[in-house]
């Protein structure tokens, strides 16, 4: 907010200085003031319009429309068509395996606490428990789409806990629940039936799942089923969290998803996907 309204002011001041004296210059600076106001209004309205109407208006290039830290998200996810969606490396790597790292993580790898014996999880969740900023729940790095690894806390060999208390542990055909979750960050158009795909890559998925879990604990817009130690929650998050892919999604032209199904064993995530 501030940045959007401040920078036009600065710019107009600057243009006023440059256009020193003369009615023509004054007219010019008035015109540029109007232009700046229009741009500022656009910068303020653009995200709102995008999220409300599902439009895809472009942001301003100079940072006046920057997204505030922590406000990832549904907004961004909501404006993107399923195929054009990804600006997240994780989601762009349908074939990514445990050994493949998203680009640009060398520096991060250096940061990681090598003193901890916990192994890095599949899908290259690196050990970030040394992170001194980790006040629970605040998600200090959640505005950076590359840093979904930071979202989870290592709690032992291949075991990770989310800020809401969900556990991601070894298991599933993929070897680790996080690897299974990765399947739900990309469409599988050939897969029979529906295939829920989270917006926002791995970080988006983890945050959405946490939101759903938080809501489910309070019983808000949640249906709950229990079966032999499993709990299956279906939570309506009230906004877009992904889309329906797979063959069924394709047939239905990829409808947006605003519900999440969580299949849990206590706090352990077995699987989770949008629907």
């Amino acid at each position, binding site marked *: 907010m501030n940045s959007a309204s401040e920078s036009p002011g600065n710019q107009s001041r600057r243009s006023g200085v440059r256009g020193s004296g003369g009615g023509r210059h004054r007219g010019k600076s008035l015109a540029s003031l109007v232009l700046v106001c229009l741009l500022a209004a656009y910068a303020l309205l653009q995200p709102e319009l995008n999220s409300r109407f599902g439009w895809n208006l472009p942001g301003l290039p100079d940072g006046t429309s920057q997204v505030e830290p922590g406000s990832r998200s549904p907004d961004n996810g909501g404006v993107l068509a399923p195929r054009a969606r990804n600006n997240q490396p994780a989601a762009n790597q349908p074939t990514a395996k445990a050994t493949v790292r998203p680009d640009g993580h060398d520096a991060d790898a250096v940061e990681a606490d090598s003193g901890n014996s916990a192994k890095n999880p599949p899908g290259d969740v690196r050990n970030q428990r040394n992170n001194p900023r980790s006040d629970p729940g605040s998600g200090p790095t959640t505005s950076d789409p590359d840093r979904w690894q930071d979202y989870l806390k290592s709690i032992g060999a291949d075991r990770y806990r989310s800020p809401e208390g969900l556990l991601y*542990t*070894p*298991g*599933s*055909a993929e*070897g680790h629940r996080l690897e299974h979750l990765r399947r739900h960050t990309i469409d599988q158009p*050939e*897969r*029979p*039936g*529906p*295939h*829920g795909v989270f917006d926002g890559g791995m970080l988006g998925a983890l945050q959405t799942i946490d939101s759903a879990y938080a809501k489910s604990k309070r019983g808000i817009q949640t249906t709950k089923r229990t*079966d*032999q*130690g*499993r709990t*299956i929650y279906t939570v309506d998050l009230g906004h877009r969290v992904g889309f329906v892919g797979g063959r069924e999604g394709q047939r239905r032209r990829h409808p947006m998803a605003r519900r999440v*199904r969580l*299949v849990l*064993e206590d706090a*352990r995530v*077995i*699987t989770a*996907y949008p*629907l």
Partner: protein
Amino acid sequence: MHSVAMCPICQAGLCGIRICTGDDPLVPAPRGGFLLCDECEAIWMSPDVTTAHHYPSSESPECPICHGDLWGNSVWADNQQIQSLGWSQAVNPDLDQTATGS
């Protein structure tokens, strides 16, 4: 992967036919079949998802036939294996996965 049905429990998984291969390649495989949901991991011991199901342990899942490691000791059954189980009639060809997923 050849499947019998969409999972009635999670509604998103495919109930594929797996066959136990046992853990010792020198010993004839036990060759029992079961259904496994590839999403929620529910298991059925017959090719019919209206029968009783159970869940394997989430962190140390066992093959329900030989009780070895679920993923190491069983595979998604191919057509020949499905035939040998006598379960061919149960397969829903509309749910066959093309290419990936074995």
